[in-house]
């Protein structure tokens, strides 16, 4: 199963509706490579938000239960008592504290995905937290064109550390337009300057998508970011953005960057192929 990733700015939007949920009485299946320690992974299913609100008794936490090998075979019945009569996150905390061998994990983290794989990956949680903090605190910073700031340094460092995962989380923040446009613009200008081929595609996607932002400030920054990225693959998305752009000055900026790419010797696009 796949777990929807956290993809919002505020804690309030980490609602149960996007968390997988395990309902009381529901059967689950364990699945572990043969030979691993005794244990079982809880495969939880997703419950809708409205059910959660109505019943108030759904567990929205995924965890992997691992028994210590020395504890012998997995017992057929495990009973855990808890004090809190409301079935909630605190129940899980009690569950975990009662049995030290229960370690919270997601079922996705046990696999190393191939670079060419497309299955949705569990991203390190700290990326979301760090980026959220970074974007929130940056609202108080003053940005000057081309000047490094604490924000830009931290952002680049995050991308260098976490690669595509960091860019994808940033994408979710920017696309949901919950980031201050000034901060989003600064981020877009800087991600175009990062020299890292492994994140080129994801940065290109975010910059291209931002050409269609509702904020003209963000669209302007996306143009600058694309100019810095200097990747002729942006030709098609620039052409589409030019057709939609209603601010003359911005459209001219886009055309200028488009010409920059077309001028790159020998590169043009026909039938979606670089020629």
């Amino acid at each position, binding site marked *: *199963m796949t777990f929807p990733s956290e993809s919002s700015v505020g804690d309030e939007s980490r609602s149960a509706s996007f968390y997988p949920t395990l309902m009381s009485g529901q059967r689950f299946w*364990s699945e572990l490579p043969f030979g691993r320690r005794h244990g079982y992974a809880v495969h939880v299913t997703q419950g809708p938000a409205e059910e959660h609100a109505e019943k108030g008794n759904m567990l929205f936490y995924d965890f992997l239960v691992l028994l210590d090998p020395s504890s012998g075979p997995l017992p057929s019945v495990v009973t855990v008592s808890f004090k809190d009569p409301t079935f909630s996150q605190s129940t899980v905390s009690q569950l975990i504290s009662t049995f030290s061998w229960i370690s919270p994990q997601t079922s996705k983290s046990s696999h190393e995905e191939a670079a060419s794989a497309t299955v949705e990956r569990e991203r390190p949680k700290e990326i979301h937290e760090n980026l959220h903090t970074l974007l929130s605190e940056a609202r108080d910073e003053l940005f000057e064109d081309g000047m490094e700031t604490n924000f830009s340094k931290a952002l680049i460092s995050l991308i260098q550390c976490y690669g595509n995962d960091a860019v994808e989380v940033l994408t979710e923040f920017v696309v949901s337009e919950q980031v201050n446009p000034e901060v989003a613009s600064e981020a877009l200008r800087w991600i175009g300057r990062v020299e890292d081929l492994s994140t080129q595609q994801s940065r290109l996607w975010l910059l291209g998508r931002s050409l269609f932002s509702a904020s003209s400030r963000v669209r302007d920054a996306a143009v600058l970011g694309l100019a810095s990225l200097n990747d002729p693959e942006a030709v098609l998305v620039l052409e589409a953005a030019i057709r939609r752009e209603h601010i003359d000055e911005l459209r001219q900026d886009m055309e200028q960057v488009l010409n920059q790419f077309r001028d790159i010797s020998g590169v043009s696009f026909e039938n979606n192929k670089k020629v």
Partner: protein
Amino acid sequence: MANKRKPPERPSQDIWQVESLRFTAFPTPDAQIEEPTWWKDLIGEPAERKVSAPKRRILQEEGAFSGGKLMLSIQPLRIDWTLSPSPSQQQELDALPTIGLVSDSLRVFSELIERWIQSESFPPVKRIALGTILLHPVENGKQGYEQLSAYLPAIQLDTEHSSDFSYQINRPRASVSGLADLKINRVSRWSVALMRAGSIAVGPQTVESVMGREHFACRLELDINTAADFAGSLPRERLPAILHELASFGEEIVREGDVP
């Protein structure tokens, strides 16, 4: 000269049961996806459950389909259709949680996806993927490893004294769909899984977990996808051919094992 034991024959591909099927489309940056009606258009009725977060550009819909549970998940970076066992299929204690045989399930799922990618409202996409998790029940771990050996000619697996075996490989091939620069990734991961059904009963002051019997199964995870480095969007008129190609590559791996 030491006697080299002959690996078991590969059984028919229909010994493999489907735990889940997934089709993923990665929209291009300029794709405008506003309140899509794909579920209703394809299934013919509204979803049984729907969760929407318009600000975050997220929509999830799910309902019964072909005996299993179908889910549509839309996010800015990707759109996933997933077919997995229905709640009733998951309630089975003595059978693996699967939706059916690989050939039947793949055909039904592919037909659904083909209708979607041919629809007017299908967005421009940069990349598509067909993924599946397949299970082939075996008696025990050793038999599972022996069976896997038949699918992995490049691997010498000591079936008697091994555990925790997992083999993942990508065998990319050039697409024959008519797009000269398109490469298809053929990612497969092979292992033997130990599975147990269980249930959790929640009382006012207790959580009780009841576990069923153990099941062993060869596990094959496939992720057949168009490579990320393709420039621009995949031509709309070529998508059905590419989808068939992905399915065909998947079936070949199920039939022939890990071959270049």
